[in-house]
């Protein structure tokens, strides 16, 4: 029997989670009605070391005073322990990309697109404790240019020294038109005390080549899918390094997620021509590609948001079909590839909404694995019914071995988790030379000091 958890009464929040318990601790959970979309879009998951908590953040909408970023704490069985809402005049909690929450000791650090007052948008780090209580915050604005410049922080990773490295885009206002902004790849390094220690942008890479994710194996690596580029930063303090192109034969790859274990670097993504391929590749620090796996999922039009490695270096990648369905179901697809590049399984999660609903949509943002054989996905679903759009945050847990397939019904909503037709196709991926592609950076002029977010925030915590 589904367990219905209900709390709160304000329709601007995600509330009233419907919980479909599978056997064991696995589950499918989705929030109740909300007229606002963004806090009902789970963005990013972190898991604590004992697998007791799954932490999920939402985002806030800077164009509306009625939307709030939220910090959720779930058990690994999907029971909501607490939810904390944050908003201010600058709408500070705006975590809008997957993989942007990091566990740091007993706290959690969220990469935030902070709408501060020294510039329009900044790279901000917001620190919460494990209950979602605000601890501190720092942000760093654009490194140069005008007050209309802004930062589009996409990715964050913590290095072995405790520094937080942020990658993304620096959009510099050029005063002209069409476009008004020039986009540079951008990095900022915060130390373990959350002070900014370096900040630079890359001037000789193609425009808008923003690294979308980061990984560390000795060097810092980051794929920028917009122009098929891989950045390698050999010195994160100065930005020294190189960038190189990547390409495939017959099918052009679009690699947007960067991973690493102790031996290899990995990239995952899709094909760039919407030819229905999920892609993963493994390469070493000499850019020698060990394997590339293309998985054809026919007529699926896969969009990727996130990938993760487990302790055995199996890769789990989550895709979704962004086509909205009229009254049909909508689909997310999860692909598992092992460390040798062999496809292990493909699973679809199909969602069919309530009778009469139209314009169904599903978007899966993040995927994470715990150390006891489960993976978690989060995102959102929405549909139109009886004159209203319904936005629902979604959080699911399934076993990493691909088991527990089946059809799960909750009222008139149906989730189907099943094996689908797919095939591993032999294709290749290769990297170009970095000749003449040494990175040229411009560091921030003068001293760098992150502005503090010295909040005295209490919060709105609902405990159970």
């Amino acid at each position, binding site marked *: 029997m589904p367990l219905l958890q209900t709390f709160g009464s304000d329709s601007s929040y995600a509330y009233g989670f419907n919980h479909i318990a599978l056997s064991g601790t696995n589950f499918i959970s989705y929030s109740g009605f909300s007229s606002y979309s*963004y806090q009902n879009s789970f963005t990013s998951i972190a898991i604590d070391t004992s697998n007791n908590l799954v932490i999920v953040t939402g985002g806030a909408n800077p164009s509306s005073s009625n939307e709030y970023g939220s910090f959720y704490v779930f058990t690994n069985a999907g029971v909501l322990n607490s939810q904390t809402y944050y908003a201010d005049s600058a709408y500070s*909690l705006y975590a809008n990309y997957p993989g942007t929450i990091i566990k740091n000791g007993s706290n959690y650090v969220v990469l935030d697109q902070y709408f501060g007052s020294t510039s329009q948008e900044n790279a901000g780090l917001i620190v919460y404790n494990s209950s979602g209580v605000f601890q501190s915050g720092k942000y760093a604005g654009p490194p140069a240019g005008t007050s209309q410049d802004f930062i589009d922080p996409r990715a964050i990773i913590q290095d072995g020294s405790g520094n937080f490295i942020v990658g993304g885009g620096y959009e510099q206002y050029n005063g002209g038109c069409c476009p008004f902004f020039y986009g540079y790849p951008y990095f900022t390094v915060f130390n373990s005390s959350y002070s900014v220690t370096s900040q630079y942008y890359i001037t000789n890479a193609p425009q808008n080549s923003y690294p979308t994710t980061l990984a560390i194996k000795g060097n810092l690596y980051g794929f920028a899918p917009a122009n098929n580029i891989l950045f390698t930063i050999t010195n994160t303090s100065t930005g020294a390094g190189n960038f190189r192109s990547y390409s495939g034969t017959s099918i052009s790859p679009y690699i947007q997620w960067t991973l690493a274990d102790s031996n290899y670097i990995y990239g995952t993504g899709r094909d760039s021509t*919407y030819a229905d391929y999920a892609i993963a590749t493994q390469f070493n620090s000499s850019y020698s590609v060990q394997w590339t796996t293309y998985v054809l999922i026919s007529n699926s039009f896969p969009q990727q948001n996130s990938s993760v490695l487990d302790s055995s270096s199996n890769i789990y990648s989550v895709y979704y079909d962004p086509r909205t369905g009229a009254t049909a179901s909508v689909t997310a697809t999860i692909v598992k590839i*092992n460390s040798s590049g062999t*496809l292990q399984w*493909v699973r679809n999660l199909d969602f069919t909404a309530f009778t009469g609903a139209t314009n169904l949509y599903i978007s899966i943002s993040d995927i994470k694995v715990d150390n006891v054989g489960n993976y978690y996905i989060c995102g959102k679903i929405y549909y139109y019914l009886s004159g209203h759009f319904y936005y629902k945050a979604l959080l699911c847990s399934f076993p990493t071995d691909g088991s527990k397939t089946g059809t799960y019904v909750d009222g008139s909503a149906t989730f189907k988790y099943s094996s689908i*037709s797919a095939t*591993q*196709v032999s294709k290749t991926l290769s990297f170009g030379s970095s000749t003449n592609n040494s990175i040229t950076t411009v560091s921030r002029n003068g001293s760098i000091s992150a502005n503090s977010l010295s909040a005295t925030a209490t919060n709105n915590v609902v405990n159970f």
Partner: protein
Amino acid sequence: MSFLKLSTMQYPLFEGDVRLEHPEITECQTGDTFPCPEGFVKIKYVEPPTIDSNLNQYLIEEFPQQIDGVWTQVFSVGTRTAEEIATIQSAIKMAQEQNNKFMPKPQVQNTSGSGSAPNVVA
């Protein structure tokens, strides 16, 4: 590598799917060393046909066929309607917009002063 389960004609199955029924197969057994348990057959891969890159066509993997006694992959090419192509193009645009930025860029603000702390939603 894909498999066909003969008793149910279930296809496609991959290593992980087979391992669910045969947990004695270790994680180290993979690729060429992955065994083919009784009741399953390995499917011979073939190169998929080339399709155009303008969304007009898509590949369909059909049920495998026995060719000269070997279970072999079979592909066909599907054709999308103009309506389907328009739906995909709309989805591409929306996905690109979401990927580029989740929110529309806000209006230019007064940029003087220092950062402010998040307030509390009571």
